[in-house]
């Protein structure tokens, strides 16, 4: 795929990433002030990679993500109201308040599974890909996971099967250098996770996930490969987790120099500057976009806040379906 990376594409990526960024900031504010009480795994620092992948996907494509998945879900196009309402545990939430942040599901936007179990999304993604292969619907399945997940058995079984069956699946490993409080090198006996693709005769690429163009190219190639029926790809997007594992994690285990070094390369301001220097948008336009997004956030938060909690009768619903 040698489509050229235009300023317009950069802007599109920035806008998606900025949406994620503004929502994450707002959520952390709400959590800090106690107005929102929910488990929360901030995607801060990982916005660009999700956005650069997202611009290649259609709403009919499938996404399987994790507890740290709000950036993937937003990049996939999930609407704010059902998403926020689910965080607020409300009846109007995507999952009626029954799933919560770790289990966001929204089939209309292709968000099929959000799992709280490390590595478990990968085998499921294969099944979605198998169905697409059978139906010849041309859909691509994106499954995202962390560096720590690359050490669990499900990763191995899933990549081997995906390669054997040439499934239209993209395995996106977001290597943010930590799994909870454990350092990458202490848990992962390989320099670059993408090298593991060789164990499955699979294409594997390591890319700087915080570089919009590099991430956009790697993603585009993987999506094109999948759509063409040429099989899966393992993308390792190097990035960093700025806000600790979960909201409230002081991240004391991260050496200050390491943290500052990454912070100094925060992809959001860098990308914003690139958009401006590229001429795709002016300061004023970007500020206007922020205002626009903030208005949407306000509206969705209001919706979530105003919505009722699920009725207790919901407890016995959705346990089993109507018998076939």
């Amino acid at each position, binding site marked *: 795929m040698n489509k050229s990376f235009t300023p317009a594409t950069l802007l599109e990526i920035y806008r998606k990433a900025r949406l994620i960024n503004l929502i994450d900031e707002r959520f952390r504010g709400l959590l800090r002030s106690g107005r929102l009480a929910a488990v929360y795994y901030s995607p801060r620092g990982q916005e660009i990679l999700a956005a650069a992948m997202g611009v290649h996907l259609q709403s009919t494509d*499938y996404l*399987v993500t994790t507890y740290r998945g709000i950036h993937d879900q937003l990049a996939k196009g999930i609407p704010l109201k059902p998403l926020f309402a689910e965080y607020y545990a409300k009846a109007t*939430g*995507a*999952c*009626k*308040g*029954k*799933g*919560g942040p770790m*289990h966001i*599901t*929204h*089939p209309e936007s292709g968000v*099929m*599974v959000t*799992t*709280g*179990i490390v590595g*478990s999304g*990968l*085998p*499921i*993604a*294969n*099944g*979605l*890909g*198998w*169905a*697409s*292969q*059978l*139906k010849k619907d041309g859909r691509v*399945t994106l499954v995202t996971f962390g560096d720590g997940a690359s050490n669990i*058995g*499900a990763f191995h*079984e*899933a990549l*081997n*099967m995906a390669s*054997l*069956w040439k499934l239209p699946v993209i395995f996106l490993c977001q290597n943010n250098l930590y799994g909870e409080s454990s350092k990458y090198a202490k848990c992962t006996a390989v320099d670059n996770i993408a090298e593991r693709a060789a164990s499955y005769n699979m294409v594997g690429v390591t890319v700087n996930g915080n570089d919009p163009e590099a991430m956009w190219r790697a993603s585009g190639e993987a999506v094109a490969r999948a759509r063409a029926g040429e099989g899966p790809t393992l993308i390792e997007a190097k990035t960093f987790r700025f806000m600790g594992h979960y909201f409230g994690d002081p991240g004391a285990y991260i050496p200050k120099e390491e943290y500052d070094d990454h912070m100094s390369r925060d992809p959001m301001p860098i990308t914003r500057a690139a958009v401006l220097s590229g001429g795709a948008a002016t300061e004023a336009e970007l500020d206007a976009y922020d205002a626009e997004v903030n208005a949407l956030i306000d509206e969705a938060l209001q919706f979530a806040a105003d919505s009722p909690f699920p009725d207790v009768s919901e407890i016995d*619903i*959705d*346990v*089993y*379906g*109507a*018998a*076939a």
Partner: protein
Amino acid sequence: MSTATAAAAEAKPEVITFTEAFSRALHDAMEMDPTVITLGEDIGDEEGGGIFKVTKGLSTKFGTDRVKTTPISEQAIVGAAIGASLAGMRPIAEIMLMNFITVPMDQIVNHAAKLRFMSGGQTHVPITIRTRTGAGAGTGGQHSDMLEAWFAHVSGMKVVVPSTPADAYGLLLGCIFDNDPCLFIEDQLTRTQTGPVPVKGEIIKLGKAHVAREGKDVSVIGYGRPVRDAMVLAEKLAAEGISVEVVDLRTVSPLDTETVLKSVAKTGRAVVIHEAPKSFGCGAEIAARIQEALYSELKAPVLRVASRDVTVPFSRVLEAEYLYKASSIEAAIRKTLEKRAAR
């Protein structure tokens, strides 16, 4: 009989084995519905159609896209079934033997069973996991376990164990076309035993127990292999004037409490049977429900007959000692009939 019916009789044998019943259900389901697909180790015809030949012919007839031989990767097998079901398919995943189901427990319990609820009903997981097991084959501690109690304890799952070839056919179809994740357990010991031929395409709905034999003195409640022993015993005891009612659960979970209580309310006595070890097994739940609901009606304590609480031994001498015995079922039945001081 007319030559026509004679021909029919010829064309269609009077009995089939469990293996034939499992196999027919798979063939018919895939024929009935193009969304039915299946995967598992060695199931394709290039591999001989499965270790017990249950899937023989499927890959040739329906193609290797719908019938996939997999690597030895149980997590990937169940995960693929789950994912495909989310996209509208009805996958059947084979886990060769039940002890290997310990490998994909996360996929089954944390995902298949919970996704409908956690998604607020937006998605559901209509998969069937076929597995086989059973002690008595001399295969030892890691190839014989009945672990159905684990899954019965997990809401969202359905657990089905047939006791006749006809039930095996109808219940397997019931699992495949049910809209929730079903665990279907095939007994490897009785797989060559025969029974009446089921009606093609006739589904047995899940969740209903079946009164396999009516009686008035004592209710024997169970599922799978031991129910076959109970039916023989019931016949034998009838000669002595002991009238045994046999309730075949068919679906172990969700449990059809209504049918069970109706029977015990009538007989006032209950013996619960299963092959799995007794302690913390499914029989405990059945006994607990009966004694709670029918305290005043019970003429005797609810008794349980099951296998020993030990690892399945290799040596036949010990394996026989491990396994529940038909004689123990008979003894339990007689015990419930003994006179006892009323409370």
